[in-house]
């Protein structure tokens, strides 16, 4: 049972709730193996996918999850032009409320946008990524994938490497892995490290060697080309030289290490193609696990809704 009727971030989940979501996702995963990949659980419920940032991967993953639970889904890709026309976020959502959506799945470029909606809207809100803040379903599917391979999260050394400063995937993963007792190492250039990183409960390092040394899981984050404009890195070439995950660098990790990436990948920038496509990579599994995890989240939240919250 989840305490909150929204999923705004890992920050609001306790370890018991995280376990519950992962266990439920296991049961949901089985549905994908059936001839009829559908259960009637959310029949009659309306779920709106409100994406203010373009995203094919996450949006389609949510859509499939919703359809497998028999919900009525509506995907709205809000073009930036309507925002520049001056309509506020609240007005956009209030217009949608005419449809009385039970759940709104939202991705937005401003940190805290789902929190604003959760305070002021009637629908339950699922955060599909807000600015640099959190991407809770990504962290949950990452944890699910790790758990499938390693049978546990506690005590694992997880190295997260890349643009730590701007990454919501980092913040969600650090919180989740921390709550579940993993040993998290965060690595990147100093210009791309959030302030007070050790206070997040991680070991911070600028050395990819020490991050990967003995790692059970290596998670690579995207480096956006735009980062050169804020003087964060001189070039993607130099970034790859110092922080790219190559087969040589990977040798320091455990023999049964798994390589993860939330996607989309910049091959040759943060990760070498040989590693991305190699035997240790579980990147494609992350994608298919995403549907099961999102089904679990929607199922658990929709049940909450029925209790008159």
């Amino acid at each position, binding site marked *: 049972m989840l305490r909150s009727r929204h999923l705004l971030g890992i920050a609001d989940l306790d370890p018991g709730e995280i376990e519950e979501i992962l266990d439920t996702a296991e049961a949901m995963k089985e549905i994908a193996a059936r001839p009829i990949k559908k259960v009637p659980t959310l029949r009659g419920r309306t779920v709106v996918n409100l994406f203010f940032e373009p995203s094919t991967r996450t949006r389609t993953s949510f859509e499939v999850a919703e359809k497998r639970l028999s919900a009525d889904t509506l995907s709205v890709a809000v073009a930036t032009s309507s925002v520049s026309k001056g309509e506020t*976020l609240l007005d956009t959502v209030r217009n949608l409320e005419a449809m009385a959506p039970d759940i709104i799945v939202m991705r937005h470029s401003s940190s805290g946008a789902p*929190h*604003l909606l959760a305070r002021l809207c009637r629908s339950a809100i699922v955060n599909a990524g807000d600015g640099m803040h959190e991407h809770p379903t990504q962290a949950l599917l990452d944890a699910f994938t790790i758990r499938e391979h390693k049978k546990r999260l506690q005590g694992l050394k997880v190295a997260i490497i890349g643009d730590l400063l701007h990454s919501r995937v980092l913040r969600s993963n650090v919180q989740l892995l921390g709550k579940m007792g993993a040993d998290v190492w965060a690595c990147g250039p100093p210009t791309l490290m959030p302030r007070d990183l050790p206070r997040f409960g991680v070991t911070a390092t600028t050395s990819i060697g020490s991050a990967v040394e003995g790692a059970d899981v290596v998670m690579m984050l995207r480096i956006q080309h735009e980062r050169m404009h804020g003087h964060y890195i001189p070039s993607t070439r130099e970034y790859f030289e110092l922080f790219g995950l190559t087969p040589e660098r990977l040798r320091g990790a455990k023999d049964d290490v798994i390589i993860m990436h939330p996607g989309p990948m910049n091959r040759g920038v943060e990760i070498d193609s040989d590693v991305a496509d190699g035997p240790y990579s579980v990147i494609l599994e992350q994608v298919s696990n995403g549907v099961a995890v999102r089904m679990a989240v929607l199922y658990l939240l929709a049940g909450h809704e029925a209790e008159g919250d």
Partner: protein
Amino acid sequence: MKLLLKGGRVVDPATDRDGEFDVLIENGTIARLGRSIPADGADVLPMKAGWIVSPGLIDMHVHLREPGQEHKETIATGVRSAVAGGFTAVACMPNTDPVNDHPGITELILKRAAAANLARVYPIGAVSIGSRGEQLAELGAQAAAGCVAFSDDGRPVVPALLMRRALEYSSMLDVPIIDHCEDPSLKADGVAHEGFHAARLGLRGIPGAAESIMLERDVSLAELTGGRFHAAHMSARQSLRAVRDGKARGVKVTSEVAPHHFVLTDECLESPVRYDTNVKMNPPLREAADRDAMIEGLADGTIDVIATDHAPHHADEKLVEFDRAPFGIVGLETCVPLVFDRLVHTGRIGVRRAIELLSTNPAQILKLPGGSLAEGRPADITVLAPDETIEISASALASKSKNTPFDGWRLQGAAVLTIVGGRVVYQRGL
């Protein structure tokens, strides 16, 4: 018209007075201070036990939004808010629309203030045309029209050369240049203090150094030119060092701090509510060490003035994502309670010091006729009740806008009577 304030504790640093005195007001000026003054036809206002009779409080950093942004505040509603907060005078910043870089706008502001006839309004003119930081505005004409200082507040004066020229030119007029100290490239698109809480919430940060390096620059320029530099709304502990060093070297530098910077910290970003846009202001709320440094600076004399940076915004404008919300909170009506509750009652500063910060010093810096209860001065008086407990209610504020993080706070200390030019313009409970 005669008014007699009977039996209050008069605290006036300008005349070095602290004791029980009656104050007789006649024809808008302070006629006499003394013991047991006979009423003799005057309206008698008995002062309750514990009340303090102070020279009228002066807020030298206020945004009245008129002309151009009257949906947030007008001069009329702004001065009503001022007197409700105990202020008999305010100095208003020029970032209106159009910017006050021209005597015509200064005259408009003065006219509207006179029509409202509550608190006195002293316009601060823009340093540069449109506050664009390119060309000096006509400071002489503006001073003649009534401007008491110059600032491009909202923005820093970016080119050092322009700041230098402004300081040199204004020294001829004996008027200070007030700078919103901020390095634009370090501030970039930041929205909160660069620290653990902003990092956790995924908000772009503004480091304390963005403020202090500009402030250090301005102190050096004031030293170079002999001009008078006043640092607006300080927030970072590094800034205090620069002010202290400058003063020690004899540079003409003064500084102010707003109540939220000695009361709140960046913890407010996460608690009680996450992403509350009513804690978004520039400069941002910083760490506990910065807040504590501000309190120290108030106590040890490094900081000269408490000014609210009253920045009204319409509710619709604040009800958006944190990134998009405008910076600023209202402050005129929460200032006195916060000063008493958090500084005086905690023993950090005494009543006399509080009045220096809120009245004596602003009057001196801007060369205003108020800030003193000497005989013959205009009867601008604030009566303070340090022991009165109040609860802040955003919806009940006199200001047109209600953007305050202090809604629901119970604080001890309030202004109970505001008198401007011998006229009672605000009385608490009425």
